[in-house]
Protein backbone atom coordinates (compact mmCIF):
# COMPACT_ATOMS: atom_id res chain seq x y z
CA UNK A 1 0.00 0.00 0.00
CA UNK A 2 1.44 3.31 -0.94
CA UNK A 3 0.31 6.44 0.72
CA UNK A 4 1.54 9.96 0.42
CA UNK A 5 2.67 11.25 3.76
CA UNK A 6 3.32 14.70 5.07
CA UNK A 7 6.24 14.38 7.43
CA UNK A 8 7.54 17.20 9.60
CA UNK A 9 10.98 16.84 11.16
CA UNK A 10 11.65 18.91 14.26
CA UNK A 11 15.26 19.98 14.20
CA UNK A 12 17.29 22.26 16.41
CA UNK A 13 20.37 24.27 15.74
CA UNK A 14 22.56 23.70 18.78
CA UNK A 15 25.79 25.15 20.02
CA UNK A 16 28.51 22.60 19.59
CA UNK A 17 28.92 21.85 23.27
CA UNK A 18 32.23 20.19 22.63
CA UNK A 19 33.66 23.66 22.06
CA UNK A 20 32.36 25.80 24.89
CA UNK A 21 34.41 28.91 25.48
CA UNK A 22 34.45 31.19 28.49
CA UNK A 23 32.03 33.71 27.08
CA UNK A 24 29.33 31.22 26.26
CA UNK A 25 26.96 32.20 29.06
CA UNK A 26 25.05 35.42 29.55
CA UNK A 27 24.56 36.94 32.98
CA UNK A 28 20.99 35.72 33.32
CA UNK A 29 22.15 32.15 32.98
CA UNK A 30 20.89 31.65 29.46
CA UNK A 31 23.17 30.55 26.72
CA UNK A 32 25.01 33.00 24.53
CA UNK A 33 24.67 30.94 21.39
CA UNK A 34 26.34 33.54 19.23
CA UNK A 35 29.66 32.73 20.89
CA UNK A 36 29.67 29.11 19.76
CA UNK A 37 29.76 27.21 16.48
CA UNK A 38 26.22 26.18 15.60
CA UNK A 39 25.48 22.69 14.32
CA UNK A 40 22.50 20.56 13.31
CA UNK A 41 21.61 18.60 16.44
CA UNK A 42 22.98 15.08 15.87
CA UNK A 43 19.88 13.06 16.79
CA UNK A 44 17.72 15.36 14.65
CA UNK A 45 19.91 14.20 11.75
CA UNK A 46 18.95 10.60 12.59
CA UNK A 47 15.32 11.77 12.61
CA UNK A 48 15.70 13.40 9.19
CA UNK A 49 17.07 10.15 7.77
CA UNK A 50 14.05 8.21 9.05
CA UNK A 51 11.78 10.77 7.38
CA UNK A 52 13.69 10.57 4.09
CA UNK A 53 13.49 6.77 4.15
CA UNK A 54 9.73 6.96 4.58
CA UNK A 55 9.61 9.34 1.64
CA UNK A 56 11.72 6.90 -0.44
CA UNK A 57 9.21 4.15 0.28
CA UNK A 58 6.17 6.34 -0.22
CA UNK A 59 6.75 8.36 -3.39
CA UNK A 60 4.91 11.63 -3.43
CA UNK A 61 5.48 12.16 0.27
CA UNK A 62 6.74 15.48 1.53
CA UNK A 63 9.41 16.05 4.18
CA UNK A 64 9.45 19.48 5.83
CA UNK A 65 11.70 20.77 8.59
CA UNK A 66 10.46 22.87 11.45
CA UNK A 67 13.01 24.66 13.55
CA UNK A 68 12.84 27.39 16.14
CA UNK A 69 15.67 29.82 16.68
CA UNK A 70 17.29 33.06 15.64
CA UNK A 71 17.75 34.13 12.01
CA UNK A 72 20.82 32.02 11.50
CA UNK A 73 18.84 28.83 12.28
CA UNK A 74 17.66 29.08 8.65
CA UNK A 75 20.80 27.03 8.05
CA UNK A 76 18.86 24.03 9.43
CA UNK A 77 16.31 24.34 6.64
CA UNK A 78 19.04 24.63 4.00
CA UNK A 79 20.84 21.59 5.44
CA UNK A 80 17.54 19.68 5.22
CA UNK A 81 17.18 20.68 1.57
CA UNK A 82 20.72 19.51 0.80
CA UNK A 83 19.91 16.06 2.15
CA UNK A 84 16.63 15.62 0.36
CA UNK A 85 13.91 17.48 2.28
CA UNK A 86 11.28 19.48 0.44
CA UNK A 87 11.33 22.62 2.52
CA UNK A 88 10.77 23.95 5.97
CA UNK A 89 9.75 26.72 8.28
CA UNK A 90 11.84 28.82 10.63
CA UNK A 91 9.95 29.76 13.79
CA UNK A 92 11.54 32.97 14.87
CA UNK A 93 10.39 35.80 17.09
CA UNK A 94 11.95 37.72 19.94
CA UNK A 95 8.93 36.63 21.98
CA UNK A 96 10.19 33.04 21.81
CA UNK A 97 13.45 33.97 23.53
CA UNK A 98 14.32 32.41 26.87
CA UNK A 99 11.94 29.48 26.36
CA UNK A 100 12.40 26.32 28.41
CA UNK A 101 11.20 22.98 27.04
CA UNK A 102 7.56 23.68 27.88
CA UNK A 103 7.42 27.07 26.13
CA UNK A 104 9.39 25.62 23.21
CA UNK A 105 6.98 22.73 22.79
CA UNK A 106 4.07 25.16 22.95
CA UNK A 107 5.50 27.21 20.07
CA UNK A 108 6.28 24.11 18.02
CA UNK A 109 2.81 22.68 18.66
CA UNK A 110 1.16 25.91 17.53
CA UNK A 111 3.19 25.86 14.30
CA UNK A 112 2.45 22.17 13.73
CA UNK A 113 -1.28 22.88 13.98
CA UNK A 114 -0.84 25.01 10.87
CA UNK A 115 1.17 22.35 9.06
CA UNK A 116 -1.17 19.33 9.51
CA UNK A 117 1.48 16.61 9.34
CA UNK A 118 0.75 12.88 9.29
CA UNK A 119 3.95 12.14 11.16
CA UNK A 120 6.16 14.33 13.34
CA UNK A 121 9.69 13.03 13.76
CA UNK A 122 12.29 14.57 16.08
CA UNK A 123 15.60 13.61 17.58
CA UNK A 124 15.28 12.13 21.04
CA UNK A 125 17.19 15.00 22.61
CA UNK A 126 19.46 17.92 21.80
CA UNK A 127 23.08 18.00 22.90
CA UNK A 128 22.87 21.41 24.54
CA UNK A 129 20.24 20.42 27.09
CA UNK A 130 19.97 16.62 26.87
CA UNK A 131 16.43 16.82 28.25
CA UNK A 132 14.47 14.65 25.78
CA UNK A 133 11.35 16.58 26.80
CA UNK A 134 10.26 18.52 23.75
CA UNK A 135 9.07 15.52 21.71
CA UNK A 136 6.70 14.16 24.38
CA UNK A 137 5.55 17.66 25.31
CA UNK A 138 4.67 18.47 21.70
CA UNK A 139 2.74 15.19 21.52
CA UNK A 140 0.81 16.04 24.67
CA UNK A 141 -0.05 19.52 23.45
CA UNK A 142 -1.36 18.13 20.18
CA UNK A 143 -3.08 15.25 21.99
CA UNK A 144 -1.19 12.74 19.86
CA UNK A 145 0.40 9.40 20.75
CA UNK A 146 4.17 9.38 21.05
CA UNK A 147 6.83 6.78 20.39
CA UNK A 148 10.16 7.76 21.93
CA UNK A 149 13.62 6.19 21.61
CA UNK A 150 12.88 4.96 18.06
CA UNK A 151 15.64 3.14 16.27
CA UNK A 152 13.74 2.36 13.08
CA UNK A 153 10.45 3.26 11.50
CA UNK A 154 9.70 -0.16 10.07
CA UNK A 155 6.62 0.54 7.95
CA UNK A 156 2.88 0.22 7.84
CA UNK A 157 0.91 -2.69 9.20
CA UNK A 158 -2.88 -2.72 9.57
CA UNK A 159 -2.90 0.97 8.66
CA UNK A 160 -0.68 1.75 11.62
CA UNK A 161 2.99 2.58 11.72
CA UNK A 162 5.37 0.00 13.20
CA UNK A 163 8.28 1.50 15.10
CA UNK A 164 11.18 -0.31 16.73
CA UNK A 165 12.35 1.26 19.96
CA UNK A 166 15.76 0.95 21.58
CA UNK A 167 15.47 0.65 25.36
CA UNK A 168 18.02 0.12 28.12
CA UNK A 169 17.82 -3.63 28.09
CA UNK A 170 16.51 -4.56 24.69
CA UNK A 171 14.15 -3.62 21.93
CA UNK A 172 10.41 -3.16 21.69
CA UNK A 173 8.24 -2.90 18.59
CA UNK A 174 5.06 -0.91 18.78
CA UNK A 175 2.25 -0.10 16.39
CA UNK A 176 0.90 3.44 16.48
CA UNK A 177 -1.93 5.11 14.61
CA UNK A 178 -1.20 8.39 12.81
CA UNK A 179 -0.73 11.23 13.33
CA UNK A 180 1.92 10.55 15.95
CA UNK A 181 5.13 12.00 17.32
CA UNK A 182 8.23 9.83 17.01
CA UNK A 183 11.57 10.66 18.63
CA UNK A 184 14.66 9.02 17.19
CA UNK A 185 17.59 7.62 19.14
CA UNK A 186 21.25 7.95 18.19
CA UNK A 187 21.45 4.21 17.46
CA UNK A 188 19.30 4.80 14.35
CA UNK A 189 21.15 4.97 11.02
CA UNK A 190 23.12 8.10 10.27
CA UNK A 191 21.76 10.64 7.84
CA UNK A 192 22.62 10.30 4.18
CA UNK A 193 25.19 12.80 2.90
CA UNK A 194 24.35 16.02 1.11
CA UNK A 195 23.25 15.61 -2.46
CA UNK A 196 25.36 17.74 -4.83
CA UNK A 197 22.42 18.69 -7.05
CA UNK A 198 20.29 19.68 -4.08
CA UNK A 199 23.18 21.69 -2.71
CA UNK A 200 23.61 23.67 -5.92
CA UNK A 201 19.89 24.22 -6.16
CA UNK A 202 19.19 25.28 -2.60
CA UNK A 203 22.30 27.04 -1.40
CA UNK A 204 20.62 30.33 -2.19
CA UNK A 205 17.47 29.52 -0.22
CA UNK A 206 16.99 32.46 2.12
CA UNK A 207 14.60 33.85 4.66
CA UNK A 208 13.37 37.37 4.11
CA UNK A 209 15.53 38.49 7.04
CA UNK A 210 18.60 37.03 5.37
CA UNK A 211 17.65 38.70 2.07
CA UNK A 212 17.54 42.04 3.79
CA UNK A 213 20.88 41.44 5.48
CA UNK A 214 22.32 40.44 2.14
CA UNK A 215 21.72 43.86 0.68
CA UNK A 216 24.91 44.91 2.40
CA UNK A 217 26.88 42.02 0.97
CA UNK A 218 27.39 42.89 -2.67
CA UNK A 219 29.07 39.58 -3.47
CA UNK A 220 25.88 37.62 -2.81
CA UNK A 221 22.90 37.72 -5.12
CA UNK A 222 20.67 40.43 -3.76
CA UNK A 223 17.45 38.64 -4.50
CA UNK A 224 16.95 34.89 -4.66
CA UNK A 225 14.02 33.49 -6.56
CA UNK A 226 10.72 33.49 -4.70
CA UNK A 227 10.66 29.69 -4.83
CA UNK A 228 13.75 29.63 -2.63
CA UNK A 229 12.26 31.75 0.09
CA UNK A 230 12.34 30.07 3.51
CA UNK A 231 9.21 31.09 5.42
CA UNK A 232 9.63 32.71 8.83
CA UNK A 233 6.80 32.44 11.31
CA UNK A 234 6.40 34.47 14.46
CA UNK A 235 3.82 34.62 17.22
CA UNK A 236 1.53 36.60 14.91
CA UNK A 237 1.61 33.77 12.36
CA UNK A 238 0.98 30.84 14.66
CA UNK A 239 -1.38 32.50 17.13
CA UNK A 240 -1.84 31.29 20.70
CA UNK A 241 -1.48 32.92 24.09
CA UNK A 242 1.44 35.31 24.22
CA UNK A 243 2.06 34.54 27.88
CA UNK A 244 2.76 30.89 26.97
CA UNK A 245 5.76 31.84 24.85
CA UNK A 246 9.33 32.53 25.78
CA UNK A 247 10.49 33.37 29.27
CA UNK A 248 6.98 34.06 30.59
CA UNK A 249 5.78 30.65 29.40
CA UNK A 250 8.67 28.87 31.08
CA UNK A 251 8.02 27.52 34.58
CA UNK A 252 11.64 26.52 35.10
CA UNK A 253 14.13 29.24 35.96
CA UNK A 254 17.87 29.05 36.12
CA UNK A 255 18.82 29.99 39.65
CA UNK A 256 22.53 29.51 39.45
CA UNK A 257 25.23 28.51 37.01
CA UNK A 258 28.54 27.19 38.17
CA UNK A 259 31.47 26.58 35.97
CA UNK A 260 33.09 23.28 36.57
CA UNK A 261 35.99 23.54 38.94
CA UNK A 262 37.82 20.43 39.92
CA UNK A 263 37.97 20.08 43.65
CA UNK A 264 41.46 19.15 44.58
CA UNK A 265 41.63 16.51 47.25
CA UNK A 266 44.63 15.04 48.94
CA UNK A 267 46.00 12.68 46.36
CA UNK A 268 49.13 10.67 46.73
CA UNK A 269 51.41 10.85 43.74
CA UNK A 270 53.26 7.72 42.71
CA UNK A 271 55.79 6.95 40.04
CA UNK A 272 55.56 3.93 37.79
CA UNK A 273 58.33 2.04 39.61
CA UNK A 274 57.51 -1.50 40.70
CA UNK A 275 58.29 -0.66 44.35
CA UNK A 276 55.69 2.09 44.56
CA UNK A 277 53.05 0.11 42.68
CA UNK A 278 53.75 -2.91 44.86
CA UNK A 279 53.20 -0.79 47.98
CA UNK A 280 49.92 0.46 46.64
CA UNK A 281 48.68 -3.02 45.73
CA UNK A 282 49.67 -4.37 49.15
CA UNK A 283 47.75 -1.56 50.79
CA UNK A 284 44.68 -2.25 48.64
CA UNK A 285 44.81 -5.93 49.52
CA UNK A 286 45.21 -5.32 53.24
CA UNK A 287 42.30 -2.86 53.24
CA UNK A 288 40.19 -5.48 51.37
CA UNK A 289 39.60 -3.04 48.53
CA UNK A 290 40.77 -5.79 46.24
CA UNK A 291 41.21 -9.52 46.74
Amino acid at each position, binding site marked *: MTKKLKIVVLAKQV*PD*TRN*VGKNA*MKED*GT*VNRAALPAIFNPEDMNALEQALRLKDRHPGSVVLLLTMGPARAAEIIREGYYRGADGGVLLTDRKFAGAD*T*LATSYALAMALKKMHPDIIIAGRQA*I*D*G*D*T*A*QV*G*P*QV*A*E*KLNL*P*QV*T*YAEEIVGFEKNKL*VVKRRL*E*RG*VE*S*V*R*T*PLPAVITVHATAPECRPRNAKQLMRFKHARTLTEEQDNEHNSYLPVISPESLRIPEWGVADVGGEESHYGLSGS*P*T*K*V*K*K*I*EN*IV*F*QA*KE*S*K*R*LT*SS*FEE*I*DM*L*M*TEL*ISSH*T*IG
Partner: protein
Amino acid sequence: MDNIIIYIETEGGKISDVSLELLTKGRTLAGELSCKLEALIIGSSVEQHTQELFNYGAETIYLAQDKRLEHYLTLPYSAITIDLFKKERPQIALFGATSVGRDLAPRVSSALVSGLTADCTSLEIGNHKEAKSGKEYQNLLYQIRPAFGGNIIATIINPDCRPQMATVREGVMKKEPLATPVKGVVKVIETKEIIKTEDFVVEIIERHIEERKIDIKGSPIIIAGGFGVGSKENFNLLYELASVLGAEVGASRAAVDAGFAEGARQIGQTGITVRPKLYIAAGISGQIQHTAGMDQSAMIISINSDPNAPIHQIADYAIIGDMNEIIPRMIKSYKLNSK
Protein backbone atom coordinates in the same frame (compact mmCIF):
# COMPACT_ATOMS: atom_id res chain seq x y z
CA MET B 1 -1.57 17.69 49.30
CA ASP B 2 1.92 19.14 49.25
CA ASN B 3 3.67 15.80 49.63
CA ILE B 4 6.44 14.20 47.61
CA ILE B 5 5.44 11.49 45.13
CA ILE B 6 8.01 9.12 43.68
CA TYR B 7 7.07 7.30 40.50
CA ILE B 8 8.02 3.64 41.00
CA GLU B 9 9.23 1.77 37.98
CA THR B 10 9.30 -2.00 37.74
CA GLU B 11 11.23 -4.16 35.35
CA GLY B 12 11.01 -7.93 35.11
CA GLY B 13 8.96 -8.22 38.32
CA LYS B 14 11.39 -6.12 40.34
CA ILE B 15 11.40 -2.51 41.46
CA SER B 16 14.09 -0.62 39.55
CA ASP B 17 17.08 0.49 41.57
CA VAL B 18 16.54 4.10 40.54
CA SER B 19 13.10 4.13 42.18
CA LEU B 20 14.55 2.90 45.47
CA GLU B 21 17.33 5.49 45.18
CA LEU B 22 14.67 8.16 44.73
CA LEU B 23 12.74 6.94 47.77
CA THR B 24 15.93 7.11 49.81
CA LYS B 25 16.53 10.69 48.66
CA GLY B 26 12.84 11.47 49.05
CA ARG B 27 13.00 10.57 52.76
CA THR B 28 15.59 13.28 53.34
CA LEU B 29 13.65 15.85 51.33
CA ALA B 30 10.36 14.98 53.06
CA GLY B 31 12.10 15.31 56.42
CA GLU B 32 13.32 18.80 55.57
CA LEU B 33 9.93 19.84 54.28
CA SER B 34 7.95 18.09 57.05
CA CYS B 35 5.74 16.45 54.47
CA LYS B 36 4.94 12.87 53.56
CA LEU B 37 6.85 10.63 51.20
CA GLU B 38 4.51 8.84 48.82
CA ALA B 39 4.88 6.38 45.95
CA LEU B 40 2.92 5.72 42.78
CA ILE B 41 3.18 2.27 41.29
CA ILE B 42 1.41 1.17 38.11
CA GLY B 43 1.30 -2.30 36.57
CA SER B 44 -0.59 -5.56 36.18
CA SER B 45 0.45 -7.20 39.43
CA VAL B 46 2.32 -4.76 41.59
CA GLU B 47 0.73 -5.45 45.00
CA GLN B 48 3.66 -7.71 45.80
CA HIS B 49 5.92 -4.66 45.96
CA THR B 50 4.17 -2.74 48.71
CA GLN B 51 6.30 -4.14 51.56
CA GLU B 52 9.52 -3.16 49.81
CA LEU B 53 8.19 0.37 49.33
CA PHE B 54 7.39 0.56 53.06
CA ASN B 55 10.94 -0.66 53.73
CA TYR B 56 12.17 2.38 51.84
CA GLY B 57 9.91 4.81 53.65
CA ALA B 58 6.85 5.30 51.45
CA GLU B 59 4.07 6.40 53.81
CA THR B 60 1.33 6.23 51.18
CA ILE B 61 1.38 3.94 48.18
CA TYR B 62 -0.92 4.77 45.30
CA LEU B 63 -1.47 1.49 43.56
CA ALA B 64 -2.88 1.29 40.03
CA GLN B 65 -3.36 -2.31 39.03
CA ASP B 66 -4.94 -3.45 35.79
CA LYS B 67 -4.12 -6.42 33.59
CA ARG B 68 -3.90 -4.10 30.57
CA LEU B 69 -1.03 -2.27 32.26
CA GLU B 70 1.49 -5.11 32.29
CA HIS B 71 3.97 -3.12 30.22
CA TYR B 72 4.59 0.61 30.18
CA LEU B 73 2.41 2.46 27.68
CA THR B 74 2.63 6.23 27.44
CA LEU B 75 -1.04 7.12 27.25
CA PRO B 76 -2.67 5.07 30.05
CA TYR B 77 0.30 5.49 32.39
CA SER B 78 0.36 9.24 31.88
CA ALA B 79 -3.44 9.44 32.27
CA ILE B 80 -3.19 7.79 35.71
CA THR B 81 -0.23 9.91 36.79
CA ILE B 82 -1.83 13.16 35.63
CA ASP B 83 -5.11 12.30 37.34
CA LEU B 84 -3.34 11.51 40.63
CA PHE B 85 -1.22 14.66 40.55
CA LYS B 86 -4.30 16.79 39.87
CA LYS B 87 -6.07 15.29 42.90
CA GLU B 88 -3.14 15.05 45.29
CA ARG B 89 -1.25 18.17 44.26
CA PRO B 90 2.20 16.98 45.30
CA GLN B 91 4.79 19.73 45.76
CA ILE B 92 7.52 17.50 44.32
CA ALA B 93 7.34 14.57 41.89
CA LEU B 94 10.41 12.52 41.00
CA PHE B 95 10.98 9.99 38.22
CA GLY B 96 13.93 7.86 37.15
CA ALA B 97 15.71 9.23 34.10
CA THR B 98 15.10 5.97 32.26
CA SER B 99 13.44 5.40 28.91
CA VAL B 100 10.17 5.12 30.86
CA GLY B 101 10.66 8.13 33.14
CA ARG B 102 11.88 10.30 30.29
CA ASP B 103 8.84 9.32 28.21
CA LEU B 104 6.31 9.77 31.00
CA ALA B 105 7.52 12.81 32.97
CA PRO B 106 7.55 15.34 30.08
CA ARG B 107 4.06 14.27 29.04
CA VAL B 108 2.84 14.80 32.61
CA SER B 109 4.63 18.12 32.96
CA SER B 110 3.09 19.38 29.73
CA ALA B 111 -0.42 18.39 30.81
CA LEU B 112 0.01 20.05 34.20
CA VAL B 113 1.88 23.03 32.74
CA SER B 114 4.62 22.58 35.29
CA GLY B 115 8.37 22.64 34.93
CA LEU B 116 10.50 19.54 34.64
CA THR B 117 14.26 19.24 35.00
CA ALA B 118 15.92 16.28 33.33
CA ASP B 119 18.74 14.11 34.61
CA CYS B 120 19.43 15.82 37.92
CA THR B 121 22.56 14.79 39.76
CA SER B 122 21.63 16.44 43.03
CA LEU B 123 18.44 17.64 44.73
CA GLU B 124 18.34 20.08 47.63
CA ILE B 125 15.84 22.25 49.43
CA GLY B 126 16.49 25.98 49.51
CA ASN B 127 15.03 29.45 49.33
CA HIS B 128 14.92 31.89 46.48
CA LYS B 129 14.48 35.59 46.07
CA GLU B 130 13.41 36.79 42.67
CA ALA B 131 15.79 39.55 41.70
CA LYS B 132 13.28 41.61 39.71
CA SER B 133 10.15 41.50 41.87
CA GLY B 134 11.86 40.90 45.19
CA LYS B 135 9.39 38.07 45.79
CA GLU B 136 10.65 35.48 48.22
CA TYR B 137 10.10 31.77 47.98
CA GLN B 138 10.67 29.31 50.83
CA ASN B 139 11.65 25.66 50.52
CA LEU B 140 11.97 25.24 46.79
CA LEU B 141 13.46 22.16 45.23
CA TYR B 142 16.89 22.97 43.82
CA GLN B 143 17.25 20.74 40.78
CA ILE B 144 20.94 20.52 40.09
CA ARG B 145 22.29 19.10 36.87
CA PRO B 146 25.16 19.37 34.47
CA ALA B 147 24.22 21.24 31.31
CA PHE B 148 25.75 22.33 28.11
CA GLY B 149 27.67 19.13 27.52
CA GLY B 150 28.73 19.00 31.13
CA ASN B 151 30.63 22.27 31.04
CA ILE B 152 28.47 23.92 33.63
CA ILE B 153 26.37 22.87 36.61
CA ALA B 154 22.99 24.55 36.62
CA THR B 155 20.60 24.91 39.53
CA ILE B 156 17.05 24.98 38.20
CA ILE B 157 13.96 25.96 40.17
CA ASN B 158 10.21 26.03 39.55
CA PRO B 159 9.13 28.95 41.72
CA ASP B 160 5.45 29.14 40.81
CA CYS B 161 4.27 25.86 39.33
CA ARG B 162 3.52 22.61 41.12
CA PRO B 163 4.54 19.90 41.19
CA GLN B 164 8.23 20.63 40.94
CA MET B 165 9.26 17.74 38.72
CA ALA B 166 12.63 16.17 38.09
CA THR B 167 14.14 13.03 36.65
CA VAL B 168 17.27 11.49 38.16
CA ARG B 169 19.58 8.99 36.57
CA GLU B 170 20.11 5.55 37.96
CA GLY B 171 23.14 5.16 40.21
CA VAL B 172 23.49 8.85 41.03
CA MET B 173 21.90 8.64 44.47
CA LYS B 174 22.32 6.17 47.29
CA LYS B 175 19.86 3.35 47.93
CA GLU B 176 19.27 2.54 51.57
CA PRO B 177 16.32 0.74 53.20
CA LEU B 178 15.11 1.85 56.62
CA ALA B 179 16.10 -0.14 59.70
CA THR B 180 12.40 -0.22 60.62
CA PRO B 181 9.89 -0.11 57.77
CA VAL B 182 7.19 2.53 57.99
CA LYS B 183 3.61 1.47 58.66
CA GLY B 184 2.10 3.07 55.62
CA VAL B 185 -1.17 2.82 53.77
CA VAL B 186 -2.05 1.54 50.32
CA LYS B 187 -4.56 3.56 48.33
CA VAL B 188 -5.96 1.74 45.34
CA ILE B 189 -6.53 3.79 42.20
CA GLU B 190 -9.65 2.78 40.25
CA THR B 191 -8.05 2.55 36.84
CA LYS B 192 -11.30 1.90 34.99
CA GLU B 193 -12.55 5.34 35.87
CA ILE B 194 -9.42 7.01 34.50
CA ILE B 195 -8.18 5.17 31.45
CA LYS B 196 -10.18 5.00 28.27
CA THR B 197 -10.12 2.48 25.43
CA GLU B 198 -8.45 5.01 23.15
CA ASP B 199 -5.50 5.18 25.56
CA PHE B 200 -4.52 1.80 24.13
CA VAL B 201 -4.18 2.87 20.48
CA VAL B 202 -0.45 2.23 20.62
CA GLU B 203 0.12 -1.52 20.95
CA ILE B 204 3.27 -3.37 21.84
CA ILE B 205 3.72 -6.07 19.22
CA GLU B 206 7.06 -7.44 20.24
CA ARG B 207 9.36 -7.04 23.12
CA HIS B 208 12.53 -8.82 23.88
CA ILE B 209 14.32 -7.76 26.95
CA GLU B 210 17.96 -8.52 26.76
CA GLU B 211 19.67 -8.34 30.11
CA ARG B 212 22.72 -6.20 29.84
CA LYS B 213 25.57 -8.62 29.27
CA ILE B 214 28.15 -6.18 30.44
CA ASP B 215 27.32 -5.28 34.03
CA ILE B 216 29.49 -2.30 34.79
CA LYS B 217 27.11 -0.78 37.27
CA GLY B 218 27.02 -3.87 39.46
CA SER B 219 30.77 -4.28 39.60
CA PRO B 220 32.58 -3.24 42.79
CA ILE B 221 35.81 -2.66 40.88
CA ILE B 222 36.05 -0.93 37.51
CA ILE B 223 39.10 -0.57 35.30
CA ALA B 224 38.35 2.17 32.81
CA GLY B 225 40.33 3.18 29.78
CA GLY B 226 40.33 6.38 27.81
CA PHE B 227 41.58 7.64 24.49
CA GLY B 228 45.10 7.62 25.94
CA VAL B 229 45.05 3.81 26.00
CA GLY B 230 45.79 4.21 22.30
CA SER B 231 44.18 1.18 20.67
CA LYS B 232 41.74 -1.66 20.97
CA GLU B 233 44.69 -4.02 21.43
CA ASN B 234 46.04 -1.99 24.34
CA PHE B 235 42.63 -2.34 26.00
CA ASN B 236 43.47 -6.05 26.39
CA LEU B 237 45.79 -5.07 29.24
CA LEU B 238 42.78 -3.61 31.03
CA TYR B 239 40.79 -6.80 30.48
CA GLU B 240 43.71 -8.77 31.86
CA LEU B 241 43.88 -6.68 35.03
CA ALA B 242 40.08 -6.86 35.30
CA SER B 243 40.05 -10.62 35.15
CA VAL B 244 42.76 -10.84 37.80
CA LEU B 245 40.93 -8.47 40.16
CA GLY B 246 37.41 -9.68 39.33
CA ALA B 247 36.56 -6.30 37.88
CA GLU B 248 34.67 -4.96 34.86
CA VAL B 249 36.19 -2.81 32.12
CA GLY B 250 34.73 0.63 31.50
CA ALA B 251 35.60 3.28 28.96
CA SER B 252 35.39 7.00 28.40
CA ARG B 253 33.34 8.40 25.56
CA ALA B 254 36.47 9.21 23.58
CA ALA B 255 37.59 5.57 23.82
CA VAL B 256 34.17 4.33 22.73
CA ASP B 257 34.03 6.83 19.87
CA ALA B 258 37.47 5.68 18.75
CA GLY B 259 36.22 2.08 18.66
CA PHE B 260 38.45 0.86 21.52
CA ALA B 261 35.47 -0.44 23.52
CA GLU B 262 31.74 -1.17 23.17
CA GLY B 263 29.16 1.51 23.89
CA ALA B 264 27.77 -0.54 26.77
CA ARG B 265 31.01 0.14 28.65
CA GLN B 266 30.78 3.91 28.41
CA ILE B 267 30.93 5.73 31.72
CA GLY B 268 30.12 9.38 32.09
CA GLN B 269 27.46 11.91 31.44
CA THR B 270 26.27 10.29 28.25
CA GLY B 271 26.99 6.78 29.50
CA ILE B 272 26.52 5.01 32.79
CA THR B 273 27.00 6.51 36.22
CA VAL B 274 28.95 4.27 38.57
CA ARG B 275 30.07 4.38 42.17
CA PRO B 276 32.25 1.32 42.70
CA LYS B 277 34.51 0.84 45.70
CA LEU B 278 37.55 1.07 43.43
CA TYR B 279 37.87 2.89 40.11
CA ILE B 280 41.08 2.68 38.14
CA ALA B 281 41.26 5.22 35.31
CA ALA B 282 43.93 4.52 32.71
CA GLY B 283 44.70 6.90 29.87
CA ILE B 284 41.72 9.07 30.83
CA SER B 285 42.33 12.80 30.91
CA GLY B 286 39.44 13.49 33.27
CA GLN B 287 37.04 15.68 31.34
CA ILE B 288 33.92 16.51 33.34
CA GLN B 289 31.83 14.47 30.88
CA HIS B 290 33.64 11.43 32.19
CA THR B 291 34.18 12.32 35.83
CA ALA B 292 30.46 13.17 36.25
CA GLY B 293 29.86 9.45 35.88
CA MET B 294 32.50 8.18 38.32
CA ASP B 295 33.61 10.83 40.81
CA GLN B 296 31.49 9.27 43.55
CA SER B 297 33.63 6.14 43.52
CA ALA B 298 34.90 5.25 46.98
CA MET B 299 38.51 5.17 45.78
CA ILE B 300 40.03 6.40 42.55
CA ILE B 301 43.42 5.49 41.13
CA SER B 302 44.50 7.42 38.07
CA ILE B 303 47.17 6.31 35.64
CA ASN B 304 48.28 8.94 33.17
CA SER B 305 51.64 9.98 31.83
CA ASP B 306 50.59 13.63 31.86
CA PRO B 307 51.19 14.94 35.39
CA ASN B 308 48.75 17.78 34.74
CA ALA B 309 45.83 15.62 33.59
CA PRO B 310 42.72 16.70 35.53
CA ILE B 311 41.95 13.08 36.46
CA HIS B 312 44.87 13.22 38.93
CA GLN B 313 43.06 15.99 40.79
CA ILE B 314 40.17 13.76 41.82
CA ALA B 315 42.25 10.63 42.36
CA ASP B 316 43.23 9.22 45.74
CA TYR B 317 46.33 7.76 44.14
CA ALA B 318 47.76 9.35 41.03
CA ILE B 319 50.31 7.26 39.19
CA ILE B 320 52.28 9.29 36.69
CA GLY B 321 53.56 7.07 33.94
CA ASP B 322 52.88 4.75 31.05
CA MET B 323 50.01 2.34 31.62
CA ASN B 324 51.73 -0.24 29.44
CA GLU B 325 54.37 -0.53 32.15
CA ILE B 326 52.18 0.14 35.16
CA ILE B 327 49.35 -2.31 34.57
CA PRO B 328 51.61 -5.37 34.13
CA ARG B 329 53.34 -4.32 37.36
CA MET B 330 49.99 -4.14 39.13
CA ILE B 331 49.12 -7.63 37.90
CA LYS B 332 52.50 -8.96 38.95
CA SER B 333 52.28 -7.38 42.39
CA TYR B 334 48.74 -8.64 42.94
CA LYS B 335 49.73 -12.18 42.05
CA LEU B 336 52.70 -12.02 44.41
CA ASN B 337 50.79 -10.59 47.36
CA SER B 338 47.32 -12.08 47.20
CA LYS B 339 48.19 -15.66 48.07
